[in-house]
């Protein structure tokens, strides 16, 4: 049950991280194999657990502004900025399809 190239490509798009080489793909295969052991456990009638504090109410504070005005501080760590804006490259350009990309997955 090997992961298909389509799924691998899909994962690279979702994660915006690449497998880099055969070892990266092998790592995923092993991770899946390892996780498959979960299916040995009988969980009939068991509810999923999100948090160990599920019996308590989450703290919600008043919707009042209590801090802020730290624009300069927040901009300090950004590499590209203009006035009070973070500068991003053009958006809405999806990553090229697998055939057009320089990805090791092409060879698979």
């Amino acid at each position, binding site marked *: 049950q090997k992961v298909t190239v389509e799924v691998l490509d899909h994962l690279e798009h979702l994660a915006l991280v690449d497998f880099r080489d055969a070892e990266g793909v092998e790592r995923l295969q092993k*991770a899946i194999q390892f996780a498959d052991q979960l299916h040995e456990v009988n*969980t009939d009638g068991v509810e*999923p657990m999100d948090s*160990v504090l599920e019996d308590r109410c989450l703290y919600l504070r008043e919707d009042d502004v209590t801090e802020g005005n730290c624009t300069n501080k927040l901009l300090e*760590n950004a590499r590209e900025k203009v006035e009070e804006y*973070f500068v991003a490259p053009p958006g809405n350009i999806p990553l090229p399809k697998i055939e057009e990309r320089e990805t090791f997955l092409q060879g698979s």
Partner: protein
Amino acid sequence: LPRKGGLRFQVSAALREGRVTATELCQRCLSLIKSTRFLNAYITVAEEAALKQAEESEERYRRGQPLGVLDGIPIAVKDNFNTAGIETTCASNMLKGYISPYNATVVQKLLDQGAVLLGKTNLDEFAMGSGSTDGVFGPVRNPWSYSRQYKEKSVPKSHSEDEESNWVITGGSSGGSAAAVSSFTCFAALGSDTGGSTRNPAAHCGVVGLKPTYGLISRHGLIPLVNSMDVPGILTRCVDDAAVVLGSLAGHDPKDSTTIQDNFKPFELPDLTDVSKLSIGIPKEYHAPGLSSEIVALWSKATDLFKNAGAKVIEVSLPHTRHSIVCYHVLCTAEVASNMARFDGLEYGHRSDMNKSTESMYSATRREGFNDVVRGRILSGNYFLLKQNYENYFIKAQKVRRLIANDFVKVFGSGVDILLTPTTLSDAVPYMEFIKEDNRTRSAQDDILTQAANMAGLPAINVPTGLSGRGLPVGLQFIGRSFQEKQLLTVAKWFEKQVKFPMIQLEMKRHDHGAFQHQKSASFS
């Protein structure tokens, strides 16, 4: 400075009585950090800021107005906590050069008590690992590698192949913090604990490592790995010190809505003399495959200790223990996939020069910034979260998590007060041996005894117990009921007193004055 002897209020008393000044203390620690640089425990040393804090502390002592027990005490913080004005790297290229604009709540609390922040300690990249070997600044060396106790027991392969090839790992991922406390360069350090990352290196470095109950201590400013399991961890040289630090950190934080709102009262630990009312549970599943016979023997000796002192010791069962590592693997990678999504190069951290589109910039930034381990977990996590896999992996793991947590509820509900287990499968292995297996395999092996406490959110503590046949520390773990840190630490302190763990006898030939022994050891509480 007085030797450690389970006496309370040593260094703090020394400061109050003027036997030592905060500045002297700070300078000594900074100097020791320099002479133990080969341990690679620190990523950043904030020398100027620390000396300034020490001066301010000294002024307060002069006026007779110290802020508390922690005033003037040198501490270190794992480099995944935000520290205002100080670089916070998570040992990753992704955050090299990132200067935090704020202090994590726990850091702020320590500073408010007058503690002196010496620097940021080394770790596995983004706290992923169990060796403190996989960060971009290189591995941390266990100070015990340079102890007389270890050297006496090791067979030198040749004259030239001395400590260079023989040094052992600290364990991880809070290895830098554990090494810093173990080598006396600070009196307490912060770590983090998601699967055992505070207790594991504590065991290997012979220090106390406390994982508090999830929800007790604020995670605001702790760069998250697994939001539902992460906790700040506390590393100290004795249990009393851990209680003091806990006292200054615990409590509701409006900036972390996962902290409980109950009123927390700091406590002093009583000197327990009568353990006859205690019920100690020994979970049979913790006799895990690969557990060294030495540790089995030590564990057995410990249970006898409790029995002979009149405590009730019973074997219990936590039947889903063996599934906890797999469950953790899925939940951890899934949360990591989500948490690491924030690193895109736009607002902070590394940014690639690639500028064709946002997606290509993000993807190049992340390619350049993360190591293999981090990338691997992100990809696995995304796989388990795919629509077609969500139910079978992520939801399934969450169900198994409930089974694991319920095991503990049942056992604690049956009258058991505290569980006693080993912390690690063996003593620290040499670095050269450790790196033969990959990070995921190692983590899976090493987290097996510590991980379930994170699943269930329970407090747990490593107490150094004895030395192995190789002269290296071995610790045992106590796991307590939710939010019952006082009981947990009281029992741990009693145990610590019984076992009298030996002090490390560091022999560092690299010092300017030739070979010397360093035995400074005072605890601060």
